[in-house]
């Protein structure tokens, strides 16, 4: 009960979902079709993943699930059981993230920055798979991330700088 009455959904509509989020166990009770994006933002208060289209077309909500970049607006609670999720807030645990973040900062890769966490996830995922991607591989890995401010060139410079710095160690 809340001060305003009962919830709309009846109790049998709720499920408990257990998954790992940013290295810690999470258990969330929610409706099974609730998206990971909503769970992150509204239940857990983690707002780095952003809603931009909520149909998987902009990449602002990307997170890593079992190591792969996926749109958290498309993943529903019932698909989360046992998953290992890293949201943008938890990226620091990954070795490549430091290089990606520092390079994106050095190149002023973003302007409004709303898309920045999603791009960062995509780039970290790329560099975990391929330390020396060529220009085509970089662009392909970012094809699902929309940015309206920068024209992408600064993000590409950030990606190249991250690759160089990762090479130098």
């Amino acid at each position, binding site marked *: 009960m*809340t001060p*305003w*009455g009962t*919830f*709309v*959904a009846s109790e049998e509509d709720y499920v408990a979902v257990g998954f790992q989020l940013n290295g810690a166990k999470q258990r969330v009770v929610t*409706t*099974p*079709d609730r998206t990971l994006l909503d769970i992150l*933002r*509204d239940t857990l208060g983690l*707002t*780095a*993943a*952003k*809603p*931009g*289209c909520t*149909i*998987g*077309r*902009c990449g602002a909500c990307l997170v890593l699930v079992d190591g*792969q*970049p*996926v*749109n958290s*607006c*498309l*993943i*529903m609670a*019932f698909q989360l059981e046992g998953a290992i999720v890293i*949201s943008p*807030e938890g*990226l620091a645990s990954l070795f490549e993230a430091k290089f990606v973040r520092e390079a994106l*900062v*050095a190149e*002023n890769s*973003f*302007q*409004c*920055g*709303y898309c*920045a*966490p999603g791009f*960062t996830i*995509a780039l970290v995922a790329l560099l975990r798979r391929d330390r020396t991607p060529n220009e085509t591989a970089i*662009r392909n890995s970012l*094809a*699902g*991330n*929309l*940015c*309206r*401010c*920068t*024209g*992408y*060139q*600064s993000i*590409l410079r950030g990606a190249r700088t991250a690759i160089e710095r990762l090479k130098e160690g």
Partner: protein
Amino acid sequence: MRIHRPATPDAAVRLVDDSGGAAYFVGGGTALQVEWRKRETRPTELVDLTALPGFETWTWESGRVRIGAGLRLSLFETDPDMGAALPLLANVTRDVAAPGIRHRATIGGNIAGRSGCLLPAFLVLDAEIELFDVEGRHLERLDVFLSRPASSTRLITAVLLTAQNCRDRWVHRKIGLRAGFTPSVVGVAGILRLDGALINEASVAIGGGINRPRRLTAVETILRGRALEAIEPTSLTNEIAALIDAPSDSFRSGRYRSRVAASAIVQGLIQAQRSVAKPRNRLHPVSHDSPDEIEVSRQILPERWRIRPDITEKVEGHAMFLTDRRSSNMLVGRILMAGVPHAVIHAINTKAAEALPGVVAVVTAADVPGLNAFGILRQDQPALCRDRVRFVGDVVAAVAAIDAATAALALRLIKVDYEPLPIVDEVAAALEPGAPLIHADGNLVHEATFDKGDADAGFAACAHVIEETYITPRQMHGFLETEGGFAVPETDGSLTVCVGGQHGTRDQMQIARILGWPMDMIRVVTSPIGGAFGGKDELTIQPALALLALKSGCPVRLHLDRAESVTLGMKANPMRIRMRTGCDANGRLLAQEVDLLADSGAYASFSPAVVNIALEHACGPYLVPNVRTRGRLAYTNNGRCGAFRGFGAPQMTFAIESQIGRLAERVGLDPITMRRRNMREPGSPGYHGHALSPSERLNEMLDAAAASSLWRSLDDEQGQGVLIGTGIAVNHQGNGFGSLAPDESAIRLSLAPDGKVEAAFGFDEMGQGVLTAIKEVIATKLGCCRDDITPVTGDTALTPDSGGTSAGRGAYLMWRGASEAGPKFTVALQRAAAVLLGRHPDDLAVAPGGLRDVRSNSGDLLICFADLARMLGPTNLPSVDAKYSFPKTNYTDRNSRFIFASGAVVARVAVDRTTGAVRVLDLHQHTAAGPMIEPAAYLGQIEGGNLQGLGFTTTEHAEMVNGFYVTGNLDSYMLPTVIDAPLRTKVFALEGLDAGDLFGPRGVGEMGIVAVAPAVCAAVADAIGVWPTKIPIEPETLLDAMGYLRG
């Protein structure tokens, strides 16, 4: 919703069968969000297939590959063995969606959806699918499966394929609406088995998007037995196209689909190279000495490059946008939009919604205490509609509830009784006598004319006249953060409204008028913003949000989802510009006539001013003695339009620059010489005969463009199925609101208790770099360091009214603000410190971190800012306010701008001979906008504007039919992706000002967007000989022009 996770296919089938249609199978589930939004309902049960044995593995099975239907599309990228066995499929999957989706979407889902991009490939590979239904397991050929009606109880568990023969020729091509992550317009796949030069076997299939996936058996028949060298590609393409029946939609015609499909099949299977089109007589400029530009980059300007103060928190995700704020007692707001383009409201019934547990407030027009109207220039839009709706996104009601699900349900419970009215969806029709009236005072929102000289006499004397009609799109701003924020009723009875905006004080005034409150009872916070581009100039959700917070007595957050944002939000004014331009035999312009028709949508907002700015660019920067222009703006039921980066200049510049380029061809001049011959002289009167600011650099921009390396690039990509061309266009970029609009600003410098110098400036940080610029200009002026400065922006409680964050005003106003307030603030600091230190104020100077002895060279501080602040105490801290204006001309017959910057774009494009798609290879923007305050922000503004301009030119249009949006979300509205971005870009700056020029840095926020369309269109013309007149460019038009579509 109940989720089942059966362990066997039979059990899965039984679950769906028993549910009587209530349940359906789910693999990756990536298509469900789109699907559920279309239907506005969700199933009560889902059958999750992920526990089925063998569902997510692939194996070799008696010489065939068995691919589990639950395998993800990314399999081919991650598993090299799979890619090697089935190169065609590997190629296809890379073109499906984007990595984030490919990691979740399944092979089975792509097939079961019956429109997946994999289907043509599976069809030509003679795929068989393993199915379960109530009768058990079956194997069925894919083409048979597709020919039978869809059934919710047939479960696909695997696909069986024979590995590709490595000697076979194969092709796959997906043709989309843009280059990256695109919906499919049409997809083809084909395999040829050759016996020497003879085609032994041919498999060809079509599909993708709205095309029915199928083998093209008739095409296979005509290919079989043909000798490769005997095939004439063009006639074969025509032959195949005639055999392909393809449907049309709002984006591409069936004719286009069948032609590009045929062309892709022939190009991919028969002949990789087409015969080169007729060589064209290209008029490229002669190289010229380049002016002393610098390329703007971190490498070239490391000393001046600043790291944005907000970049780290943005990259790490800690930056809090106004739509990110959550608190325990915060309600969730939702807006009920009209959903019909034009109707009378007979009744609004909110009883059921109000009675729903968890709903705290429902507001309608009855809750508006003040003026139920808003609008920047005229108040013609209701805050909440009472008796009439005029576009699909008109706000009818709003709810606040304890959570999003309750709010969504409450919206569905509000019943509105509409009586439809006739729809006006064309500007010309809106202005016809007898057209249905959208507002009582008529559909003509605004009309403006300007004549000089004698246009008729001018045209009579012309050797060449070009008359053309140019069409521009309803471009969407496409900010990644849709309209949203929160409002808080404060305990003192005031209201705080936190919604991204571009002029907090104006939002505050408009909200106050709606509430019938004094402005000072409302605090408006407008920064930070996840992008605006003009689309957050006008009020959007603020009226409904404010009313919900007041009625509920609780903080309320409200964030439009993208589909709502498309429906409710602003767009650029679509324009139809008829232009007639004439010159003498030497290319000197003699006459110009312009007739502009612009769509305002249902309300005026800033649109009349947009039309005025467009008309001010009717002749570009060229001297034309005889001019006749007319612009009309009409109300329609087509959404609502208004401010958009460039504010009318992109549309008119597209037209005039195209006209100049075409006249140059007629006269036989290269595009630079033609422009040079007509370019205004520095210091000559402006378009309306008024004075313009000094430091004009238009001729230097022409020099730079003429010297561009892009004219001399080798056509190295020419052989790859594309035609290459290079084009130029010029910017004459006005800054500021103009002579008729108020254009005031203010800044406040204060020493804060923490010892930082607070620079309060009422601008909004929407990404453009206000924070960087404030730190730079204030620190430079005071002589302290940038870290001593705390910029304060976008909050009416903390910042003075600096006017709108628009019109390229910011750079100048910040720079000028530093000069206005800086010296006075320095004196205030000197005086305050002098008292404490027992020194004379003139003995002290501001230094990094504090004040030093003016005669000291060491830089040692006598007192640091923190100590100064502490010793003065919180009530005695120095603070200086300055008010000033943006420079104006005193010509007031028409709105005219005084400050101009100059630029030129050189673009090199490739036109795809198969699809007609335009790909920008290189884009160089030359700029002369005075001294750069800071290069990173300058570069960012230009690059971002350039790509937004490229979207305007090639992919972006919010299509409407009968007053409804066809492009309802980012799956159909085509923002350019990183794949669509130019391969190579450069931005150049020519920084100097004339001696005595006191107007400092010019704004470049709009510079980048304006000249891209005409430069790209000129490059297209250079490549294929035809000037696009409608943007976004229609590939079909280009194919027709290239001669491949005739017949």
